[in-house]
């Protein structure tokens, strides 16, 4: 295995708020290889978005404490000067946000918003960047790109806005694309189109993608590797077949069980994960999932409340749980 394109080690992100310190991300490590897609799944507030905003350096340095390592193509990003981050953002690393209506400026035309990224990073002229914007809109499948380039975001439909957002993210051919729930705000048919579009673009340009989502269906159809996050930590990691095929962590089981299946009967009730996600100000000691876990008794219970389980094994399919592999296989058959 060569050096991964993005490598995150022991990332910790704390926010200082009036209510106390929010431990949004706690000792997170993961890699993204060139040309692959990593899916990060987890409930709201599990630290998915925070992690990725940290990669771009978008947190307010006054209220945020960040430690650990984020290496992008060998370059350390934590503590990097602002000029470095501004050079990388939109150029080498680009981000697609969840809600394209609020994430695009209502005051500027689509073409201008796409073009200015290109201008900033390549020094192209206004005319060239406009041409590039039209080219990008064509590539993401916007009809009549020559006229739509002068439209404002509110004149676009939801799916078109997300396409425009993707065009904006890809305008400088980034090596890493972070897509934060890119399809949540869209209806199902458009979702599929957008995901296909991302896949096509990845095949053409060899982009690495981090796809943040809480939709396991999306994960199954689009990603290569999966990272399951809970309370700011990784609880399971592996390839998509490993994690979805033989899930090992009780939280992953919970997520899978809470999803409807086409093959199951309509009358079968969905099983939500019991309880609510923990407050990130007072994260439960030990395994943060233990207050919601049904299998604590199998390992005696106390161990789950004491020491925090580490992700093991170190490489490949790993999970952070005290159950033995045999027990896990037994429970999830």
């Amino acid at each position, binding site marked *: 295995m060569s050096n991964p394109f993005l490598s995150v080690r022991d990332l910790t992100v704390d926010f200082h708020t009036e209510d106390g310190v929010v431990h949004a991300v706690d000792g997170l490590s993961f890699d993204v290889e060139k040309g692959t897609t990593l899916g990060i799944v987890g409930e709201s507030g599990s630290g998915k978005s925070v992690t990725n905003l940290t990669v771009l350096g978008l947190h307010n340095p006054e209220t945020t404490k960040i430690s650990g390592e984020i290496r992008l193509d060998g370059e350390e990003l934590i503590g990097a000067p602002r000029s470095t981050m501004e050079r990388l953002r939109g150029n080498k690393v*680009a981000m697609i946000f969840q809600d394209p209506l609020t994430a695009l400026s209502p005051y500027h035309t689509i073409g201008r918003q796409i073009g*200015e990224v290109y201008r900033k990073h390549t020094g192209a002229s206004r005319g060239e960047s406009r041409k590039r914007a039209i080219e990008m809109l064509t590539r993401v499948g916007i009809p009549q790109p020559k006229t739509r380039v002068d439209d404002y975001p509110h004149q676009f439909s939801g799916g078109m806005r997300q396409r425009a957002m993707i065009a904006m993210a890809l305008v400088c051919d980034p090596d890493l694309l972070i897509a934060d729930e890119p399809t949540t705000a869209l209806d199902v048919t458009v979702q599929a189109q957008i995901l296909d579009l991302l896949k096509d673009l990845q095949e053409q340009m060899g982009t690495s993608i981090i796809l943040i989502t809480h939709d396991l269906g999306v994960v199954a159809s689009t990603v290569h590797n999966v990272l399951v996050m809970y309370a700011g930590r990784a609880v399971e990691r592996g390839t998509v077949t490993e994690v979805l095929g033989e899930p090992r962590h009780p939280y992953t089981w919970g997520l899978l069980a809470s999803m409807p299946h086409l093959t199951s009967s309509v009358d079968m009730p969905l099983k939500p994960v019991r309880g609510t996600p923990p407050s990130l100000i007072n994260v439960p000691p030990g395994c943060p999932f233990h207050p919601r876990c049904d299998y604590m008794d199998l390992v005696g219970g106390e161990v789950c409340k004491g020491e925090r389980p580490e992700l093991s094994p170190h490489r490949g399919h790993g999970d952070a749980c005290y159950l033995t592999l045999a027990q896990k296989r037994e429970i999830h058959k």
Partner: protein
Amino acid sequence: MIRFITRRTLGAAVTLVIIAAVTFFLFFAVPADPARLACGKVCPPELLEQARHNLGLDQPLFAQFLAWLTGIFTGRDYEGLGRCPAPCLGFSFVNRAPVWETILDRLPLTVSLTIGAATVFFTFGVATGVVAALRQGRPLDKIASVSSLIGASVQIYFAGTLALYYLVYKNHILRQPKYVPFTEDPVGWLSGLALPWVVLAIIFTANYTRMTRSTMVEQLGEDYVRTARAKGMPGRSVVMRFALRGTMIPIVTIFGVDLGTLIGGAIITEQTFGLQGLGQLSIRAVTNSDLPMLMATVLVAAGAIVVFNIIVDVMYAVIDPRVRLS
């Protein structure tokens, strides 16, 4: 756009007629007799009658109002005073001077005062607001909010008098405020009005600082501002091009109201610095029961507010492409 402006202009005209009517009839509700004032101290009944006739006050109220209103469009003939061409606002009850000309004579000062002060408080207020928003919670932010609060609480007659005393009379740093037309002497215009501008701006600035700061803080938290940063836009461009754009909407709103109000006459400021603008004119019209002059100053003040309202609405559409004028 054109249709919008036409429609709003028609609406504005109706508003102005209503305001004029209300002012007119309110004037007669006041127990003061302009004819007696015009007649003088010793005034036999027949002279009073004569004065009343000369001022046109012997006509029925409604006829008087109608004559005033049509006079604006067609002009009027006055016994003994001759023709008053359109737009005719009549002759002053006090000195029989043509009202329209008096207004035109005073207007440049008031407009100059407004433009100068508005430039100062707009740029200074918005700039400090932006800085405060960017330095949220830090010393500069606190200094900005405390000083703007002090500024807002200071009264012009207090600050103005102090400034006059120390800067003009005692230390001779500035000269006595005086209006010189810009076209005649731009430097004199600037130096003559600098002090009133600054003093007038002090009380207005606070509003802009506060409004800019709070809206800017809100805007900086917007998703699209984060997107701009995620695209690698440099910090200054994020603030100036993205966040400031949304901040301008409430700022333009209060700016329109303030400009409208100031054109109506900065009464206290003019009084403090002894400037002969529309504010002085309107005060004198009220105290002298000078109906034609009063009507004219009210009309100018109301007209300014109405016009700036329309401009503000158009500005909304210019700033925010989502706003459709209809």
